[in-house]
């Protein structure tokens, strides 16, 4: 009995370490935190940002596994949704950048300076696709 508990705890702990370091590795590779610090000129708060990521991951994981439910008013979902969207949008942008898609495309198509137009096509595509998905696609 005792050995079983220890073993389960050990497996769970090991799994947690792997997933946690994977998450950190992903965020690091995509360089979202440095980018945010550069934009807001807050390099000195890097430690707090680390803590924020760790707390967020632990809290999210815990609430998800334990099925915790609060009874907050519905309205606060809007800012949560916006923040989640901005984060996923930055992830998508970082991924596009890692793959070097935009510079090559701009050069091939001959847009050169007008790369912002290409960017806007992708941005509006993402917004439209996402809205279409939630409002229409889901119900059909």
């Amino acid at each position, binding site marked *: 009995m005792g050995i079983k508990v220890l073993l389960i705890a050990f497996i769970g702990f090991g799994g947690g370490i792997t997933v946690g370091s994977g998450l950190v590795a992903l965020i690091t590779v995509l*360089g*979202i935190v440095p*980018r945010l610090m*550069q*934009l*807001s*000129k807050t390099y000195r708060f890097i430690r707090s940002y680390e803590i924020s990521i760790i707390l967020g991951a632990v809290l999210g994981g815990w609430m*998800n596994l334990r099925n915790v*439910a*609060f*009874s*907050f*008013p*519905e*309205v*606060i*979902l*809007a*800012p*949560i*949704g*916006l*923040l*989640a*969207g*901005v*984060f*996923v*949008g*930055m992830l*998508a*942008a970082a991924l596009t*950048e890692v793959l*070097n898609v*935009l*510079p090559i495309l701009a050069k091939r198509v*001959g*847009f050169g300076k007008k*790369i*912002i*137009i*290409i*960017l806007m*096509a*992708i*941005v*509006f*595509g*993402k*917004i*439209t*696709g*996402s*809205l*279409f*998905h*939630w409002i229409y*696609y*889901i*119900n059909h």
Partner: protein
Amino acid sequence: MDRVIYLRMRQRVQVLQHQKVTIGEVAQIVASDENERNIKGYIIHEVTPEDKHLIVIDVMRVIGTIQKKNPGMDVQTIGPAQTILEIQMKQKTLAPVYFVLVWLLLFTGSALAIMNFHEDVSMQLVHQKIYYMITGHYKEQPLLLQVPYSFGLGLGMILFFNHLFRKRLNEEPSPLEVEMFNYQQDLDQYVIVHENKETEKKINGN
């Protein structure tokens, strides 16, 4: 002292068809006034229709030209060893149809990609769960969460590339500009090695 000139090749120079390219255009020169004026005027290359889009001028060729006209001149070179001449073709105007097609392709493509991503990670279930965790009720379609999320997606992308708040936030180059620069450098490096006949020697002499 009069016999020394300092020379630094420029990185990239735009030229026109049939232009006679002078040394002053492909390189920066520091020398005594008279030498400087003379040397800057020497013609190093004449652009002909047979030239390809890019021409590489090696520093050795520049030194050769200078030495031929001023034997014994001491040429000190600094910086890059070659200049890339980019022939400016007549400005190609992008056909509007072509442009609209590319725009629509990217638009549709990214819309499809984000939908695939949402399905792939079961985003609907996650959103339902978040709705439940916050409010304590279950809702089939938590649009209050999902609509701001969708706009946030676009905002996040713009924020990452820093196109909107350029002046207000800071003047550092955006990752996209750095990426464009790196790509251009790689292309230049390729051209320098492959378009420059002098840098490659093959066994049979061609």
